[in-house]
């Protein structure tokens, strides 16, 4: 038998082959495409009965707001949710993928998913792509071992914290948390602090805006409060509508053209039926 070299398919991880080409093109003056980012303020905190996750709802493409009410709190498992900041496609796909893996894991083990399982799956994936997957996540949930909250960075490192913020509005939100957080808050107190933190991001960071989404996870279940607060209502529409009388726009020239009738009717016999 002749010896042939076997081309093994790449095992996974990012293929950096095209990066040199991209760098060359950029140096030649090619404009790189803008991608949709979630500028974002995302937060999470642990309260007496579990975890509260919060997020704003603005998605940006460069300087333009491309979605005024997007969903940044993603489903991972019946008892685990994840807020995502960074490139929207990356956060959505990585959370979808881990959600799928967690479901398979639940069938294989016969148990409810644990937050640390989701954490390990996310950080291994992100580390393998060496930061190319631009997803910064706040992961929270309640499992048999209790409530857990983690911050996951794009390169694969994680923090385990009682309160966490990520995204461009994280500093504004963290300022609120540092001054108002206390251990063992009730649900109402926790929601108030989370809303204050997200609003701080909404009003002080250009990358965040629109509404506040919340997700409250306790041992009893998960409550997704979509658009819990809407501090930026569209209040500038005129109730009577807008009318512009003629003369507002200057007419430079006018030309009238008759539309010719293109249809000719021809009398004929009906088709014979068999």
């Amino acid at each position, binding site marked *: 038998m002749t010896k042939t070299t076997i081309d093994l398919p790449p095992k996974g991880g990012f293929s950096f082959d095209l990066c040199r080409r991209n760098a060359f093109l950029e140096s030649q003056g090619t404009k790189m495409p803008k991608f949709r980012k979630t500028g974002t303020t995302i937060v999470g905190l642990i309260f007496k009965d579990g975890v509260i996750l919060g997020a704003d709802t603005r998605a940006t493409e460069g300087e333009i707001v491309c979605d005024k009410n997007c969903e940044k709190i993603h489903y991972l498992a019946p008892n685990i949710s994840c807020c995502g900041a960074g490139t929207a496609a990356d956060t959505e796909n990585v959370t*979808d993928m881990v959600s*799928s893996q967690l479901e*398979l894991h639940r*069938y294989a083990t016969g148990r409810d998913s644990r937050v640390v399982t989701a954490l390990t799956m996310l950080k291994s994936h992100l580390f393998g792509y060496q930061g190319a997957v631009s997803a910064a996540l706040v992961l929270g949930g309640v499992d048999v071992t209790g409530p857990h909250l983690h911050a996951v960075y794009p390169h694969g490192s994680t923090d385990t914290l009682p309160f966490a913020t990520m995204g461009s509005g994280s500093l504004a939100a963290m300022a609120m948390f540092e001054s108002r957080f206390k251990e063992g808050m009730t649900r109402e107190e926790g929601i108030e602090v989370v809303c204050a933190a997200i609003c701080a991001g909404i009003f002080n960071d250009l990358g965040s805006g629109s509404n506040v989404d919340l997700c409250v996870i306790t041992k009893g279940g998960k409550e997704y409060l979509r658009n819990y607060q809407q501090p930026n209502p569209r209040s500038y529409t005129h109730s009577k509508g807008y009318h512009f009388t003629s003369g507002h726009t200057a007419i430079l020239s006018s030309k009238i053209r008759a539309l010719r009738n293109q249809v000719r009717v021809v009398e004929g016999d009906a088709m014979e039926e068999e």
Partner: protein
Amino acid sequence: MGDSQYSFSLTTFSPSGKLVQIEYALTAVGAGQTSLGIKASNGVVIATEKKLPSILVDENSVHKIQLITPNIGVAYSGMGPDSRVLVRKSRKQAQQYKRLYHEPIPLSQLVRETAAVMQEFTQSGGVRPFGVSLLVAGFDDNGPQLYQVDPSGSYFSWKASAIGKNVSNAKTFLEKRYTDDMELEDAIHTAILTLKEGFEGQISGKNIEIGIVDASRKFRVLTPAEVDDYLAEVE
């Protein structure tokens, strides 16, 4: 599939036009413990014997009826380890579908893909056909459905079916008892009675397993206590 030394299929035609390996696989299924399924108007029930090789085996560790998705479950007759491989592949296929279309996989498509896997193993190098027949039950947008998949890769949708040992008696029993407007509770009782027909020894919640799916679209395996309750009702 398989090393280059075994790139030929071990399943080859006999002069009479049969694939003997598949016939033998069906024999292996026929020697397996009885499983049956009944489709009711508002749900599906599948049941299987769970005779353990010795009284020393911990029955809580044995799960013959498995979940593939939240609304689809499967029972088997034949070789347990072969069924595990198929269940694993089916679960993965269901997840891939969900990732692509963001909705749960319809039962008929899942069955088609599982059957395709089983057929692959009758025509690939170095592998043998699966020694199991599967009864797949689920509730999706097309209502309650019950499918049977054979080692050859052929699949059928059934109103009621039985596989494994004692299958002819079980099917005759089901033919007599089945009605189109049966409800899930009646179907569960009928399933228990059918299993009881060919059962050797004392039937109880510990040596049979029953899985049901109703309009809530949540497939679940009944606990031994619940099975005992149904057994008491049937007496």
